[in-house]
Every structure is written in C-alpha cells, then in structure tokens.
C-alpha cells in the first residue's frame, strides 16, 4: 500500500448522499489537504460491512437507525448526529409527463419506482406520504422497488419506470439537473428523513484525527450550505 492511500480517510456513504459528497469532499480537501475516499452503497450494506470490521472511518448514513445500531454495538466514537434532513421528490425523465400526485393514477403510468420501504428511508417516507394522501392502495400494484435510492434512479432514468420517488439531491446533482421534470413533496406530509453520521473507531490515531476533522466539517456552516444546494434541509 502506498503512503497516500493509507493516509486517506474512507467515508462510507449512503447512496443518496453520493452527489453532495463529491462537493463536500472537494471543499474539505481544499481546506485541510486531507485526502478522502468514498465507498458508496446502501446504508444497510455499509452497516453490515462495518460490523464485520470494514476499514471505514466515517459513516454517512441515510437515516438514524443504522448509525444508532452501530453505536450501540460499540463501533462509534460518539453518539451519531443528524447532519441533514432528506427531501423527497417525484421525478420523471419523460418529457410527456408532468409530475403530479394525480397523474400517478393515470393509465400511461405503468410503473412507479419506489425505494424499498423495508430498507431505505426514502422508501418509508414515500409510503407514509402516499398513505396519508389515500393513494397507497390504489397505486400499490404499480410499484417497483429499488434496493437503494440508486436503483430507483436507475429505473427512472432508464425509463423502465415512467416515474418515481427519489431524493432531491439526485435531481439537483450536476448530472441530472436538466433531465426530466420533478416536483418536491411537501415535507409536512411525511416524517422527517433524519440522516445521521457516525464517527467510527480507528486504531490509528492519525486517521482518527483526520476523520474527526471531516466529521466536524460535516456539521459546519460551509457543509450546511452545500447540503442545502442539494436540497437537504437542516
């Protein structure tokens, strides 16, 4: 292993955060000169891997539950903290579809991509929202489930599903900014998607020091601003 690699801190990143994370890291590196690497996948898998001793230094989750579990089992330096609240959007890449709650019931919508409520916080929020709106039972047969927010994006982006619920950070990301149409779901209609981060234990003091710097940076004003640009609310 080269010096450089072992120096870098490894940030386990929930899929919905990957776009914002690029900007966060860039700013952080610019400020401190500390190298960062990300490992992106669903929060659930990251949790399982951390439990098995994965060499990650900071865990940026999509919810509060996973970091809490890990902390209880002694993987964290301190109690996890919420760094942002996620925002749910309804997104389509088809020019012919104007996203709205009503259009979901129409016949031209055959599939609605939803994150799996069992494992993804955005899925839970979607379910809650649709139930409140009294549409859940009607639409249930149209759901297709993605195991993470990425899978949902894939379904929507490829047009396999005409429309779907995803994170606002996705539609605001540089790559997706001008693709398709989206509307934001009223945050009052679902309980907050509290996204928390956990500073993980490490045997090397230097790494831990750097990781803590990043962890603290995540709650800084600068970070907040970036997060807001990606549609996260504080």
């Amino acid at each position: 292993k080269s010096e450089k690699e072992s120096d870098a801190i490894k940030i386990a990143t929930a899929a919905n955060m990957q776009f914002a994370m690029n900007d966060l890291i860039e700013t952080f590196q610019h400020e401190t000169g500390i190298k960062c690497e990300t490992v992106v996948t669903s929060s659930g898998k990251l949790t399982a891997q951390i439990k098995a001793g994965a060499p990650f230094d900071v865990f940026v989750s999509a919810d509060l539950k996973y970091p809490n579990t890990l902390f209880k089992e002694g993987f964290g330096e301190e109690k996890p903290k919420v760094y942002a609240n996620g925002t749910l959007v309804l997104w389509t890449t088809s020019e012919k579809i104007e996203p709205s709650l009503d259009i979901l019931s129409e016949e031209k919508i055959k599939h609605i991509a939803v994150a799996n409520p069992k494992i993804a916080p955005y899925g839970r929020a979607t379910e809650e929202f649709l139930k409140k709106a009294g549409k859940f039972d009607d639409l249930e047969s149209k759901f297709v489930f993605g195991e993470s927010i990425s899978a949902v994006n894939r379904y929507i982006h490829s047009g396999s599903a005409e429309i779907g619920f995803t994170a606002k950070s996705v539609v605001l990301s540089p790559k997706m900014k001008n693709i398709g149409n989206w509307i934001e779901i009223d945050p009052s209609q679902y309980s907050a998607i509290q996204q928390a981060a956990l500073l993980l234990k490490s045997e090397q003091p230097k790494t831990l020091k750097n990781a803590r710097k990043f962890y603290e940076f995540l709650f800084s004003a600068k970070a907040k601003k970036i997060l807001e640009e990606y549609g996260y609310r504080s």
Partner: protein
Amino acid sequence: MIWESLWLTLKLALITTLLLFVIGTPLAYWLSATKSKSKPVWETLVSMPLILPPTVLGFYLLIAFGQSSFIGKFLDDFFGLQLVFSFSGLVLASVIYSLPFMVHPIQSGFSSLPIHLKEAAYSLGKSKTTTFFKIMLPNIKPALLTGIVLSFAHTIGEFGVVLMIGGNLPGETRVASIAIYDEVEALNYSNANTLSFILFVLSFAILLSVYLINNKSLNRIVK
C-alpha cells in the same frame, strides 16, 4: 411470503433450465461438430454472458428492454411483452445468463464421444436426428447432468441480473435471493438466516436426489 419467493425461485430455475436444455443441447452439438473457421468466435460469444458481471448484463438489459428503448416499445406494442419488472423478463435474462453453463459441459461431452459411434449409426442408415437422440445424447449423460445441474443451480443463485431488472415485485420478481438480500439490508439477520437456511436445505435436497438417482443409474450401466 417466504414460500412465495422460494416457489418463484424454483419456478424460474425450472423454466430456465428447461429452455436452456432445449436451446443449449443442439447448440453444443453444433459447436462440437462444426468444422467452420468461425467456431472459436461462436464459442467466445457463448461464453460472454459468463464474463459480463451480472449487474452489467442486467443494466444493459434494462436499457435495451425498458419502455423508453425501441426494442422495449416494440415488444410491448406488438406482443404485449414486458421484459422489465416481469417474470418473463427474468426468464429471458436467466436464459442468457446461464447459457454457457448449459452449453459448455455438453459440448465437451460431445467432443469426447468416440467418432465411431456416430459413424456406426450413420452406417445403419440412421438420420442425423435419430443418431443425435438415440446415440449421442444417451452416451453423454454425465455431461448432460452437469449442464442441467449447473444451469439450475446457477439460476437459483441468480442475483445481480434480477436485482437490476426485477424491481422486487412480490410474487412476480422477488425471488429468494432478493428476499434474503432485503432482510440482510434491513439488518433482519434472523429472517435472513431462516430464509437462507430453508433455501439451503431445499437446494441441498434437490441436488442430493439428483445425484442419488444419477449414481444409481450409472451404477447400473458401469457396474
């Protein structure tokens, strides 16, 4: 729910294996017999699904057969066939994905059959078809079994492709491997364990009976 996903897995594996057997055996035979210069190219093509990571394969299938693609639209408009988020899509994907597992062993079985068997059947005036079914196939039973077991098992263990194009629909595309994955992700390890255990025991039982039967029939032949 557990049983639903298991049943789905089994159904998928059975249908896929059956289709593959029908497609793969003649293909394997052709590959073993052809003297065409292009043979290595065909052999390589048959092997490609192996090399492509399942998610990659799944991703391109998603793009190729999605509603926004030409093929996807065409199939839907003219045949009412939807290949993403549907069981038939999984079957198609699994057939592509497991093709080499059926073709390879059977081809190697055909290749190692002594040529004089074929010659003898021809000399008795038997057509190529008769010779194929009555002489060639029965004499490569171990290879056929290998092909069937590999394809069947591989389809049961199929995951990446299904993850990509399945959409995790209960009763339609939520096969056992996906259901287990869900439980693991949700940190419901005990559910995952139960399901894995059932899948394991079931598969073990199926395979064991295949091997037991096979062993007996081989014993009868070779003594």
